[in-house]
């Protein structure tokens, strides 16, 4: 039987950065599912684009090898001809939306196929039924949750009846329950005969995906981190303190995002904040960072007498691109710091595995590297009490997540408070203490081990505790 999708030693090299990916060879038959896995920076996204014909149609660079869809070489097809055969689901559900309503989003691809009106109508109705979208049709896709957006993106592609579906880390922005739901939708698609190619590093979610064939991506990541970070090397330790949050309330208009929260933190703790998207995680962090007007009190009580005011916590923002604009990584880290602590800098750079990038232009770093850079920026800035991190694991593979956790632990051991918000339960499970939050408020605030055993709390938070995470 002829494969639907056939790739032979496909590799690609970017012209500017000279980063290269591949080679990858695979063949995919009707109803089959493949998983291409490997560390971040190994070129998964690039190869996914090669399979979907976005490379070479949208990218400059050197593509070797060939991809055939059916019996046609993608190099010889027009991009809309490829779109008819191969659907592509992107990593970030919010940014791949191209129209202003759910209805238009579903129609977009169908219109481009040039189908007759009746055919469009039929396919539209089918997909609305299948994905239970009828109550959403007039809504702006931006009012949907991340999980719903990713579902919509899938629906919009399925409506086009592609024979192959290529998925580029579709789970990385989703919380555990949304990820689980999305996987179930894909299982249904597979049963209906669609062939799938996953490029994903959140492997545990795909553990029980029926008939999934695994293809390891040959390239070993060439930025192996230093194995150990020691607290001894760190220049500075802080004295004991505690931060008291009392009656913290934040409202947008009439809607209360946070309602009368009471939390106490101690210096030296590593605390995770877990909850669904929209549960107020970011708002809580912003309040602690002093970026968000709020009612209630947040104050530090330290061992020194004068410390009874607002805490000094530096925030590491979710999207590192909101900060980067300097010519080199070094200048970026040291920007606007009056007298930088050289000792700290020397410690931080290898600890964050940024040594060889000091003279690189920040915009040319990979997503993971940029996140580490943002962390370096926050840590270099004078802060008394610690750091806050918003979704620090996005775009990081397992190895870098381990590195990150190791670093955060080190920082907390020096006496700082480290408080991070995440939807990644695996990452949350690495903290000493976890706070589970939902729209209704704090559901549980206990040592991580206890929370992982508390099934009831997870249910209340509306989150699925994946079975492979155990205390």
């Amino acid at each position: 039987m002829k494969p639907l999708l056939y790739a032979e030693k496909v590799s690609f090299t970017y012209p500017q950065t000279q980063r290269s990916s591949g080679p990858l060879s695979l063949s995919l038959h009707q109803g089959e599912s493949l998983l291409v896995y490997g560390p971040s920076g190994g070129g998964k996204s690039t190869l996914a684009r090669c399979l979907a014909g976005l490379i070479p149609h949208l990218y400059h660079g050197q593509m070797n090898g060939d991809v055939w869809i059916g019996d046609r070489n993608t190099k010889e097809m027009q991009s809309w001809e490829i779109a008819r055969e191969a659907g592509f689901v992107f990593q970030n559900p919010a940014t791949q939306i191209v129209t202003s309503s759910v209805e238009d989003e579903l129609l977009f691809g169908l219109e481009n196929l040039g189908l007759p009106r009746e055919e469009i109508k039929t396919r539209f109705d089918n997909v609305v039924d299948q994905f239970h979208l009828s109550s959403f049709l007039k809504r702006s896709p931006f009012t949907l949750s991340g999980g719903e957006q990713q579902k919509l993106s899938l629906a919009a592609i399925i409506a086009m009846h592609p024979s192959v579906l290529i998925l580029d880390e579709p789970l990385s922005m989703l919380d555990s329950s949304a990820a689980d739901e999305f996987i179930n939708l894909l299982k249904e698609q597979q049963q209906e005969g669609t062939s799938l190619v996953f490029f994903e590093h959140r492997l545990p979610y795909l553990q029980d995906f029926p008939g999934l064939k695994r293809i390891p991506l040959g390239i070993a990541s060439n930025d192996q981190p230093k194995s150990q970070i020691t607290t001894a090397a760190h220049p500075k330790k802080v004295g004991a303190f505690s931060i008291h949050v009392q009656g913290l309330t934040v409202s947008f208009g009439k809607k209360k995002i946070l309602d009368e929260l009471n939390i106490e933190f101690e210096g030296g703790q590593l605390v995770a904040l877990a909850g669904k998207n929209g549960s107020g995680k970011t708002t809580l962090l912003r309040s602690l960072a002093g970026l968000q007007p709020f009612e209630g009190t947040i104050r530090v009580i330290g061992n020194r007498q004068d410390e009874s005011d607002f805490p000094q916590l530096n925030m590491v923002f979710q999207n590192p691109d909101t900060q980067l604009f300097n010519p080199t990584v070094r200048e970026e880290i040291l920007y606007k710091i009056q007298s930088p602590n050289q000792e700290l800098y020397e410690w931080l750079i290898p600890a964050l595995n940024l040594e060889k990038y000091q003279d690189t232009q920040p915009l040319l770093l990979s997503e993971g590297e940029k996140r580490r850079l943002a962390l370096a920026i926050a840590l270099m800035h004078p802060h008394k009490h610690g750091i806050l991190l918003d979704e620090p694991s996005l775009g990081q593979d397992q190895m870098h997540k381990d590195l990150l956790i190791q670093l955060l632990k080190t920082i907390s051991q020096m006496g700082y408070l480290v408080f991070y918000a995440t939807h990644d339960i695996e990452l949350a499970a690495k903290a000493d203490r976890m706070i589970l939050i939902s729209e209704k408020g704090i559901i549980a605030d206990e040592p991580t081990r206890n929370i992982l055993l508390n099934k009831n709390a997870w249910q209340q938070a509306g989150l699925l505790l994946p079975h492979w995470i155990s205390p």
Partner: protein
Amino acid sequence: MKKKYFSTFQLIILTLFSALIVAAKIALRLPIQLPGHSGIFWMAIIIVAARVVLKKGAATFVGIVSGIMAAFLGLGDFGYLDTFISYTAIGIGTELALLLLGNPENLVVATLAGIIGHFAKFLVKWAFGAITGAPLGFVALGLAKAMISYIVFGGLGGLLGGLTLLALKKAGFFAYLAEKK
């Protein structure tokens, strides 16, 4: 198949830059009560747009799309028509200025292009006044003062655009861009 004038990427970049201008105008308020101060970000972005998409018509396109948006959102003081035309005029003015002046990575060029582009908006407001017989916003302020303020903010915006381009270049933005069609 016939090649489109703007590639899909260029079209979408210009579209998002147009929206970026309007978003800045909505989000950002300088504490200065002088006509035309929103021109700082406006001119900066439009000049960057013209450099990023190196094709004739880029600045005009940004002007038109942001003009339509501003009209829909009810921005501007003298109604939809005036708003639309003045945004469009900025686009065309900048376009023509850059056609004459060349690459806005030169800060003098960027500043002058900013002045000319922003002056085009002033001309529209002024012509709008002349058609109705009214000196419009210049009643209270005086024509010369209004003109100077437009020139200053246009120039500052152009300068910011030029500085932004230089910083983008140093930070590796154009290398990022060069990989995309």
